[in-house]
């Protein structure tokens, strides 16, 4: 029987949660790298036992960890993330020029075809790549030096490149998202990039339909429909069916369309999940009720899923990289909260249970389906 492994990054360490295919009983291992912030952990699709972890702290900066045995043991990888050439400036919160400064790795996206190749999305926003198993990292400067780079501005959480989605039919095509610059696409493996924000409307910026400046929180794709992307923006849930050339709003009947996570069912490319959050100033569910909303129509028509989730006095948040799906026949959905709970649904969102309740604040959750 297949097993499911969850890689959970938290404010104070990493955890590995494992279950058989029933996904009822879980083994919890960790904390790994205790005391450090683990922004993201992700396994290689080529070699699932090769797992990467982004480890950082305010005291000692960025560390990269690599496991080649499914998280049992770890090796420190290279942590030298140097911007290519003159770093230059972007806009600060007050609109003044501010030097580009590396702070941390937010997201690690392993290649779909090479276990030694990984992309890293970092703060201040840039994309790095290793092709030697993490020993050395090089910037893909075409993104940061895109003509609009000097106009990018940080969101409340910093100016972070937090989402990387690789087209499984053409690995030269990748989509990324930056808070608060927007979404970008490359068709040449990261050499050149174009903003893909047409159709986004952000009323909190001077030009609500600007080419860049949108606070995209997360993007997701189903591998069978690589031209269709779903986006949770600061406010608004969006979709595109032409690889980002045009976006349309699909918030529909959501009670609030602010949120951070968005993900797609493993076997139903038009079934998507979000966790609505009350507002940008109140980062918790509405009325203290934690509910996942599911659309089986690719947006617009949403239904709440709450069986097994707390329905009173719940004031946690679910951060942008903290939802994932497995690839079991009956698709499992997982998400972690800032209150330290990791919830699992083994049946596409119908029923939920807490795997753990008292971890440090959860920053990221990634599901691996293992043979």
């Amino acid at each position, binding site marked *: 029987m297949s097993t499911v492994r969850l890689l959970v990054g938290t404010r104070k360490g990493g955890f590995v949660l494992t279950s058989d295919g029933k996904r009822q009983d879980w083994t919890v291992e960790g904390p790994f790298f205790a005391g450090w912030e683990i922004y993201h952990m992700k396994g290689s699709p080529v070699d699932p036992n090769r797992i990467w972890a982004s480890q950082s*702290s305010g005291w000692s900066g960025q560390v990269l960890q690599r496991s080649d045995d499914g998280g049992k043991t770890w090796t420190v990888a290279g942590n030298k993330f140097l911007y290519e050439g003159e770093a230059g400036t972007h806009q600060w919160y007050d609109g003044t020029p501010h030097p580009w400064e590396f702070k941390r790795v937010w997201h690690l996206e392993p290649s779909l075809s090479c276990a030694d190749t990984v992309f890293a999305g970092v703060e201040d926003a840039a994309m790095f790549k290793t092709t030697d198993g993490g020993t050395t990292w090089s910037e893909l400067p075409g993104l940061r030096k895109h003509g609009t780079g000097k106009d990018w501005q940080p969101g409340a959480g910093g100016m972070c490149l937090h989402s990387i989605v690789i087209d499984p039919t053409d690995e030269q095509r990748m989509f990324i998202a930056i808070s608060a610059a927007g979404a970008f696409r490359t068709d040449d493996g990261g050499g050149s990039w174009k903003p893909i924000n047409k159709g986004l409307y952000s009323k909190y910026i001077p030009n609500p339909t600007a080419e860049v400046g949108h606070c995209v929180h997360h993007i997701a794709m189903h591998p069978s429909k690589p031209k269709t992307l779903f986006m949770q923006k600061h406010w608004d849930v969006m979709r595109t069916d032409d690889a980002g050339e045009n976006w349309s709003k699909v918030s529909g009947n959501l009670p609030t369309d602010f949120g951070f996570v968005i993900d797609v069912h493993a076997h139903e490319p038009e079934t998507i999940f979000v966790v609505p959050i009350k507002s940008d100033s109140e980062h918790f569910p509405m009325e203290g009720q934690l509910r996942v909303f599911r659309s089986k129509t690719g947006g617009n028509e949403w239904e709440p899923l709450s069986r097994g989730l707390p329905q009173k006095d719940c004031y946690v948040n679910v951060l942008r990289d903290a939802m994932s799906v497995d690839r079991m026949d009956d698709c499992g959905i997982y998400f972690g909260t800032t209150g330290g709970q990791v919830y699992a649904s083994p049946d596409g969102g119908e029923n939920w249970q807490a795997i753990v309740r008292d971890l440090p604040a959860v920053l990221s959750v990634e599901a691996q389906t293992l043979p």
Partner: protein
Amino acid sequence: MVRVDLPAHLCRLAGVAHEVTVAVDAAPVTIAAVLEVLERDYPALEGTIREHETKQRRAWLRFFVCEEDWSHVGMDAVLPEVIVNGKEPLLVIGAIAGG
């Protein structure tokens, strides 16, 4: 041999006890010279005490020498003999900050 006391999070990262000893051949012995050897012997510490490119002390770490704060003395300041001969340790301390 120079003794270096590391904060707990760096001990775990490097897989060492609270204190390590390093053989510094350079003369004179400075904080920079000690860190060069420390990073050579424990590569996991590269970039965690001082920045990769600028070699500047990371802002939330401090250096203490013989009960004095040497954080702003400069990386090239010559360490006293009691540090060089290992009678006293060079302390690398995490600032009391964060949560």
